[in-house]
């Protein structure tokens, strides 16, 4: 760190690489290893460490300083996310990407979209795609057969995609 502050690019690069590993661990402990935006946060924090490195005092310990930044970034991230999806919803991301809908509104939109589906398809998608259960577990919970779940997901998603492309979320 100190050599980086003095302008040693090699040392700085080595430091950032080291911190990337450290930060990945920090965020993984708090958000879960599979969190979609984990790497985004790592990168965002690395940029902050770099651009705001003048706030590091030479007589200070390095990790408390880095972790204080990481904690701030995490809180800021969670605050921003409060109006967004609260669970990792793969289906919502699929829908969002298909229409370039902002992820910010995907969660709420998904609920509205799903309300229009037949109950069996809705259950199938909710259990497998939203809650992340396996097909077998979903079958058990909803009382449908495994193949019915698979077909339900397939047909349900198709309807959802079509509706999102048509841009008519409320047209039931």
């Amino acid at each position: 760190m100190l050599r980086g502050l003095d302008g040693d690019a090699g040392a700085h690069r080595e430091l950032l690489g080291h911190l990337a590993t450290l930060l990945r661990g920090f965020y993984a402990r708090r958000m879960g290893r599979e969190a979609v935006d984990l790497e985004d946060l790592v990168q965002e924090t690395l940029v902050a460490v770099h651009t705001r490195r003048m706030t590091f005092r030479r007589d200070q310990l390095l990790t408390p300083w880095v972790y204080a930044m990481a904690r701030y970034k995490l809180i800021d991230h969670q605050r921003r996310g409060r109006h967004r999806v609260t669970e990792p919803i793969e289906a919502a991301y699929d829908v969002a990407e298909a229409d370039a809908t902002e992820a910010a509104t995907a969660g709420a939109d998904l609920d509205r979209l799903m309300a229009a589906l037949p109950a069996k398809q809705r259950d199938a998608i909710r259990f497998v795609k939203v809650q992340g259960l396996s097909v077998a577990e979903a079958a058990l919970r909803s009382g449908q057969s495994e193949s019915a779940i698979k077909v339900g997901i397939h047909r349900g998603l198709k309807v959802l995609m079509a509706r999102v492309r048509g841009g008519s979320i409320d047209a039931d």
Partner: protein
Amino acid sequence: MRTEDLIASLSADLKPLARHAVAGRLALGVGMGGALALVLLLFWLGLRPDIAPAAASSMFWMKLAFTFSVALAALVVVERLARPGAGIGRFWWCVAAPVLIVAMMGAAQLSMAPAGARGAMWLGQSAAQCPVRIVALATPVYVGLVWAFRRLAPTRLRLAGFGAGIMAGAVGATVYALYCTEDAAAFLATWYTLGILASGAIGALFGPRQLRW
């Protein structure tokens, strides 16, 4: 973007940093803001008409010493608020100390004055305008501080906003003292402090929005 690429691009063009870069950057922001506040004062109110004889009086320098020491103490606090993981705790007392000293001086002056004159002494000629003008003159200084914060890393934004507001208020008050003709310490302790606190409150209000990074 892959994290390795990001790291490579960040370390590509590395410049060495000065040792007291944070305080330097804050001082630069405050300096520019303060210069702007001075220009604002000259066009808006002007200097006090009796500035030359006043400069020989101790009260004129007392006022400047009061506001300047608050500003200096606030710089220490704000510098710590700008760095992740730095505590402040007792440093707030350094900001409050000049206020307490002037308040005690004011109380002593009032107790020695004849009872009928105390109210007039405390309110002076400009009690109502003084805090408002201080807040107005603090505004460019606050903007300068927000600019300085763009390369710094406050983690407690409301507190950092409050500190920046207090500091801006103290610098604004220093500039205002070049116009203000009030001489009572009680006036200073009340109305100057009120202006500085109001500036701090505004800073605390806007801090979380403006200091985010």
